[in-house]
């Protein structure tokens, strides 16, 4: 009798536990990653002349395929360009614009534009947190910037987006990445030419 009671308790508990599990045999749903940045587009618009467009597109996100990098046009020596950057997730249809999230969290993000390898150009920020957040903070974000092309040369133009950088560290608000810390959300290098 006692054994019977114990066995029935065991049985009830088994049922109770089995019914707790909430998933059934149905097929799991696919996940399209929302945070992935597949596409980076930098548009450099000169005061006069042809616009230069830099794109980096990696449709498989963290998959094995490397990003396809494309530079459309060359910079004109001595020209000032107004620059803007657009980040998109093209794994979704329609593509999701990541810029909105960056704007909402402008205080936690900063773009860095590094010029290297002999390219004669300078970059300055054209926006600050207050433009997006009304927080009276003038630390730069970098969604908008200016680029001044110097003499004819060629080299690398590197775009980095840091998440949670130390914006108050020395040089960071001037665009120097050295003390920025944080972690890289995008890093892409484009080969540019000034003609």
């Amino acid at each position: 009798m006692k054994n019977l009671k114990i066995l029935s308790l065991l049985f009830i508990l088994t049922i109770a536990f089995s019914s707790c599990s909430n998933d059934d045999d149905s097929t799991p749903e696919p996940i399209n990653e929302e945070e992935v940045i597949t596409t980076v587009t930098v548009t450099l618009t000169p005061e006069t002349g042809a616009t230069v467009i830099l794109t980096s597109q990696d449709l498989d996100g963290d998959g094995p395929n490397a990003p396809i990098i494309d530079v459309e046009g060359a910079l004109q020596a001595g020209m000032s360009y107004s620059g803007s950057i657009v980040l998109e997730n093209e794994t979704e249809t329609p593509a999701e614009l990541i810029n909105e999230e960056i704007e909402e969290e402008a205080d936690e993000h900063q773009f860095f534009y590094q010029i290297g390898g002999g390219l004669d150009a300078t970059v300055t920020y054209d926006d600050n947190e207050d433009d997006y957040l009304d927080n009276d903070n003038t630390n730069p974000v970098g969604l908008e910037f200016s680029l001044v092309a110097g003499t004819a040369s060629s080299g690398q133009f590197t775009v980095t987006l840091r998440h949670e950088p130390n914006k108050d560290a020395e040089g960071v608000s001037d665009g120097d990445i050295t003390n920025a810390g944080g972690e890289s959300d995008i890093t892409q290098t484009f080969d540019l030419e000034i003609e």
Partner: protein
Amino acid sequence: MLMLFLGIQLQAQQCNYSISGVVRDFHDGDALVNSTLSVNGYDIYTLSDFDGKYKLEGLCVGTYIITITHPECEVAEFTIEVNKNITRDFKLEHHTEELNAVTVKGENANKGSVSSVSTTLYSEILEQYSNANLGDALREIPGVSSLNTGSTVVKPVIQGLHSSRVLIINNGTRMEDQEWGVEHAPNLDLNSASNITVIKGASALKYGGDAVGGVIVTDPPKAPIKDTLYGKTILSGASNGRGLGLTSNLMKAYKNGFYIQGQGTTKYAGDLKSPDYVLSNTGLRENDFSIGFGLNKFTYGFDAYYSFYDSEIGILRASHIGNVSDLVRAINSGEPNYIEDFTYDINAPKQDVQHHLAKLSFFKRFENAGKLSVDYSFQQNNRKEFDIRRGDDRDKPSLDLKLITHSLGTNFLYDAESNFKANLGVQASYQENYPNPSTGIRRLIPDYEMYTLGAYATADYDVTDALRVDAGFRYDFRKIDAQKYYLNSSWEERGYEDEYGDLVVQRLETQLLVNPVFDYHNFSGTVGARYTFKPNWNVKMNLSTASRAPNPAELFSDGLHHSAAIIELGDLRLNQEQSYKASIELNGQAGGFTFGLNPFYNRINDFIIMEPNGLQYTTRGAFPVYEYGQVDARLYGIDVQVVYAFSENFNIQSAFAYVNGQDLDRDRPLIEMPAPNVTTTFGFIKPEWNNLTLSLRNQSVMKQSRYPNNDFEVTYINDSNQEVTETVEVSKPPSAYSLFHFSSSLDFEVFKQSTLTVGLFVDNMLNTAYRDYLNRQRYFADDLGRNFRIQIKLNY
């Protein structure tokens, strides 16, 4: 007066009847010598002789109660009606304490086998670690080290092996807590155990056939069979992390064998500190409890047990990096890139883990046969890992897994003969993993169902009093049925289409769904002997083979492991690994000198390893790719322990461990082998002075000189805007280090029958900055600095 009268009345009758027979041990049927048999209410008693025989004489017609006592047994009473000369045999059960002692020695049927190399830690040692982790406590055992992520995620390593290769048996149940991950610590509270045994190697077949590294067995407190209520409470405080811990347990037991017990632990700590800086975001919260009740009769009994483990663990903020150039910066800078003031807050990155374990077990003893036990257990493990995320996903975990396991096991222990014991058993389990898709991140571990069925037979035999031999065999079947999405690009890149194209269930635009169903048949076995050549000198020799099927991470991982900033690639083609291990243990004692030597050799075919294999590029930059593969490997090494007691008060203890691991295919060292290490403790104990104990311990860890060179080159734009190509030095082990630790304790008698123990400890007394090869955060920050701890224990 009435009694006296009745007595006289009875005396007046014909009183020449007798009861005779044999008193035996219920357990093995052995005759019990010197049992005292007395007739309640009369001055009639006798002792059983060498053959267990007894005779009670001078009884009248009537009903008597006979009490039998034996030094090693429970007092028993039997009621007997006498109307002629009666022959009656009695069977006595051992004291429960006696059974406990047998269990605790862990030498025979309960843990491993006769020839297993094993060590047990008892509550005196475990209590010192009440505010720490299982892995911390187990490092007390020579040959056991730990693989850490910071200092709060601690995984035990047995003779160089860890994770899926080390089984953890919590109260008789195999823990299913996603042990495959290197940053997944065992989800159990050390304070729920009264003792913990580590079996080095695969000889404990009863627990599983895949213990290539070994088995860790935790036992809950055993209830005594008497009316009692007792408990203990330990309050701990630590300066480093400004943490507090409280653990308490209570046991209520009855003479009829029933007991109920409960235990709870809570821990709360903030950011830890290395000697030179705060380790930001390394706080900890933990809340655990367990309850159990049951009935322990000698011939039957049951136990019901439930435990809950809940922890929230902060992961060093500076170890969360974006891509490989962030890693290069971290390695080159030598100090964390994120250091804030101390706080108790825990932010992302962090882990949030719960583990439920519910268990029911029954046993019944059969005379002249043995003990049959049946266990059912249910486990649910929920693991959430939070990374630093953006936008709406900010508060969502990036990994959210729920692992449910049901298991049913039965064991028959044959112990009717004192020189031969055998265990036969069957175990079955069903497991289901559910990765929650709401993370918005592709699943690192897929949905799967797993079925296992195992059967084993083990036996040990006393050839002579000095020589015992044992052998065992086990077969395990494992079927895994997974539903996994691959990116089309990775499916092609891995070359799976040709081999596994028929497993594809659905092809979507960028992904495809695959339904791999894999079966594994595993064989394991052990044979060994123990020879005691004189008291306190014995040698054990054991040969074992274990077979481990690849775990879900090894098979299916595919994609970015956010918390590690690496791309992990599993391989569907992996097959099981098979180890062949030989170990010898020699223990001896002469005068005040005690020693133990344990050399071993472990050959593992198709050893599954994960190694860097190039870089993969994304818009976020480059990531190192770590791929699972298989090689033939061998490990050998030795664990040594020596103790010398100068006097009753002073002793010195030293332990040394060495492991040498080699990849035989490529003829190079294996990765992540513990560096040679020596621990030396000077102890002083003076029982007359409130049981004063003082000890000074030196822990020296050498630099690991044997490591594979997995360094790789990466080209990136550095902070000075230069394109540079640098070697990422992920392989190089940190320097040797030597730490000093102090501990002391005093006992005080308080209230009635209560003892208060006050302990003071100083870890890393000299505040030495160091990094350990087996700590995954060694690239980012130094290990813990000085820590003052105080512990107050009350036994009541």
